[in-house]
């Protein structure tokens, strides 16, 4: 009895005041908030680089930036968006939601949680500081292929060290997710009762633990090639530049799924709520996620069909890649069947989720086309690829993150966001993002290579349209910032359930939820 009282007293202390609350916090919600705000900041840092890229590409000729700086922009845009915006946003959502979804008071390893976040600002300070160094920021592409990347100036060791830090942060975040999910589920919540967001994150976390060390190894080999006289990737010294690509994409392809599996989870939470109908096939969704994760380890060389692999290798990677369409199709069919004969309403989270389903599927189609090696020889390294991965990453991952933000923001803050503005944000984003990326399919097919600062005049019109879409998309995101911050500051009170009878333990907590989510484990039937 006394322990129970002591425990309650412990609960009452709440967060520390001022800056120390954020610096020293071990609370999953505070850390989740930090991750999400950091991701939002990086979304704008990376986004402003994209705006500069689209400004330069608005017309043929060299206007605003020199070619070297242009290459730095494309390189840093990708690194910042992948490691600074999309991944931290998903970790932020995981931090906020996993304990609330599985009936736990907090993450399993709270101090490590604090550390894994606070590494990131340092990592990105290092990375972004390279813009001010002799030789400029890294300009060899985010794929950092040698020998080109070895020509980087003073920025090189900073790039490598920043990637190491991001990797350490990701691995620690992933370990925390795995330990929390495996050990802290409420009584009665078996694995096959976990919400799909938790499932997709569990699988994502294993992917992270499997591949981030591979990336660390690859960049360390680059470092020793540059400074310590090794020749891992230098042909003149007996090394093999293609080996780097194999190692990089052995990380890189699972990395792609690291950025999309949690999105699948979010959308699988949202669609049933607004269709007022249970997810059509829960277990097949879990198995499909696991299949995608498995396949992600045996398809990496489809990123390098043009390096001159043996025919047998090309055939294997083509077939394996095509197979991914099967579990991905299962997911899309499940979402559509969930909507079928539902009773749908279209609040902002649902709009973003539906946008996700349509536009991610378009990205999936172009992905299937890219899998066909004999035609990939044409598509490879063109704007067709740029269009493809922006459809899966922007209208896929980013739209899912925004869907999730609108869906859970009332729960997190206790306030409803402004629905009218939310819908405006959705429609502006959806229209502009398609004006931005859809014409890039045509550019790629017509022969425009990616990563070029200037292009022949046959590409002028679609580039101009694409740039206009880009500026509109960039501006539309300011609306998102306004909506989020005005919801944090006030707004109509949200009920505990927020939505019409949503499924999940997080909706049984108050809005906003108590500082330590579930102090007594709920019973799951």
């Amino acid at each position: 009895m006394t322990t129970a009282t002591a425990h309650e007293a412990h609960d009452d202390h709440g967060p520390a005041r001022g800056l120390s609350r954020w610096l020293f916090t071990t609370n999953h919600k505070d850390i989740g908030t930090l991750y999400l705000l950091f991701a939002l900041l990086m979304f704008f840092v990376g986004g402003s680089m994209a705006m500069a890229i689209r400004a330069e590409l608005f017309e043929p000729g060299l206007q605003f930036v020199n070619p070297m700086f242009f290459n730095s922009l494309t390189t840093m845009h990708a690194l910042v968006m992948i490691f600074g915006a999309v991944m931290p946003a998903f970790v932020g959502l995981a931090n906020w939601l996993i304990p609330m979804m599985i009936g736990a008071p907090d993450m399993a390893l709270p101090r490590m949680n604090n550390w894994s976040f606070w590494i990131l600002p340092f990592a990105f300070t290092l990375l972004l500081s390279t813009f001010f160094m002799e030789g400029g920021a890294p300009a060899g592409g985010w794929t950092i292929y040698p020998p080109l990347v070895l020509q980087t100036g003073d920025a090189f060791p900073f790039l490598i060290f920043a990637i190491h830090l991001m990797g350490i942060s990701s691995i620690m975040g992933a370990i925390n997710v795995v330990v929390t999910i495996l050990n802290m589920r409420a009584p009665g919540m078996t694995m096959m009762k976990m919400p799909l967001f938790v499932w997709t994150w569990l699988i994502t976390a294993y992917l992270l633990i499997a591949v981030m060390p591979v990336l660390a190894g690859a960049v360390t080999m680059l470092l020793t090639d540059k400074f310590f006289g090794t020749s891992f990737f230098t042909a003149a010294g007996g090394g093999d530049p293609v080996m780097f690509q194999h190692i990089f994409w052995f990380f890189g392809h699972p990395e792609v799924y690291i950025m999309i599996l949690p999105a699948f989870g979010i959308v699988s939470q949202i669609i049933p709520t607004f269709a007022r109908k249970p997810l059509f096939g829960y277990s097949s969704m879990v198995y499909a996620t696991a299949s995608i994760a498995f396949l992600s380890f045996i398809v990496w060389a489809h990123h390098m069909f043009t390096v001159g692999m043996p025919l047998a290798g090309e055939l294997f990677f083509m077939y394996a890649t095509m197979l991914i369409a099967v579990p991905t199709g299962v997911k899309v069919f499940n979402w559509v069947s969930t909507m079928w004969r539902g009773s749908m309403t279209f609040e902002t989270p649902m709009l973003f989720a539906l946008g996700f389903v349509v536009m991610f599927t378009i990205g999936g189609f172009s992905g299937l086309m890219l899998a066909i090696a004999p035609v990939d020889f044409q598509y490879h390294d063109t704007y067709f690829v740029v269009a493809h991965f922006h459809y899966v990453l922007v209208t896929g991952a980013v739209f899912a993150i925004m869907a999730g933000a609108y869906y859970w923001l009332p729960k997190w803050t206790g306030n409803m966001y402004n629905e009218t503005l939310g819908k405006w944000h959705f429609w502006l984003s959806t229209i502009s993002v398609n004006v931005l990326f859809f014409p890039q399919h045509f550019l790629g097919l017509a022969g425009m290579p990616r990563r070029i600062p200037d292009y022949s005049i046959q590409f002028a019109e679609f580039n101009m349209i694409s740039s206009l879409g880009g500026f509109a998309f960039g501006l539309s995101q300011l609306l998102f910032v306004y909506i989020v911050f005005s919801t944090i500051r006030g707004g109509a009170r949200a009920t505990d359930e927020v939505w019409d009878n949503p499924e999940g333990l997080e909706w049984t907590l108050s809005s906003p939820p108590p500082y330590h989510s579930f102090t007594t484990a709920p019973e799951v039937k």
Partner: protein
Amino acid sequence: MSASMKPRGCQALAGAGLMTVAGSATAEWGLNLPVGVSPIANEAYSLHMLILWICVAIGVVVFGAMFYSIIKHRKSKGAVAAQFHESTTIEILWTIIPFLILVGMAFPATKALIAMEDTSNSDVSIKVTGYQWKWQYEYLDEEIGFFSTLSTPKDEIFNKVAKNEDYLLQVDNPVVVPVGKKVRLLITANDVIHAWWVPELGMKKDAIPGFVNEMWFRIDEPGTYRGQCAELCGKDHGFMPIVVVAKEQAEYDQWVAEQKQGQATAAAESEREWTRDELVARGEEVYKSNCVACHMAGGEGVPGAFPALKGGAITTGPVEGHIDIVLNGSAGTAMAAFGAQLNDADLAAVITYERNAWGNDTGDVVQPADIKAAR
């Protein structure tokens, strides 16, 4: 420009709406893959269209069901949610059917891939070497070879004059091939990775230092076909185009003879003594096509990336050191070994130029014979 933009803009939107059916409107706007002029390009094109139409068909079914549901099954229309879920039969069906469709795609794809990778029985072999930022072509059977660099004037790039219709897709020395012959390319690179790509020839291949990749094409119609480097290779990645000119056999033979004649003349040039003025004049030309991309027109370089030659330690230091770095390059940097790229006369000229331009005024004169001795 803007006056002519408007009607074309409407055409583009209509074309974008019809994305796949706009085959005939593609010429100007470039909506689709080119049909191509080589057998493998045709194969890639038809495979591309097949997969595209399959995707469109699947898209119509999936999005059709989704939008039907969005329109009909909405709460505002009084729809009451059914509560059905889980059906093993349906799950198996929508796993098996896509799988069968994929198998259907895999057959033509495999056939095409095998044909593309078959470089045997070729008639002409050309070795292609990627450099930062130009291409070298060596005809293995004819013992001729040359470099091919961008010939678009800088003024067009910097918007000082109007751009010509082949802007950024024009070179000084195009690669010439005979029509109707199977041409095999042996592709490699000297510094970083590049990729050789002409869309109408149907495929691209990476040019990788230390590796020799192969690809082939056979052009049946005489004509000029343009492409670009497709793998990020540094600063001027966007400025190393590829131009292939296909000629009738007789014209091709004549071109080969001219090339051989030109090479013989150039070799003789390397044997004689040059005057200082001749060297400086020739050196300026060589500098413009080989060095200016990094070391810049005024020899100022790019701080932190490419060293300045104006008042530089090497260009004003001992002549031997200067010849050595130009001949052999500098390991671990972008400085290439130009000994393999330029003849003795050009090397002597450019070194003489660098030692006397931009106020370097060393007064040194380097003769082709000095280069020959240093090799």
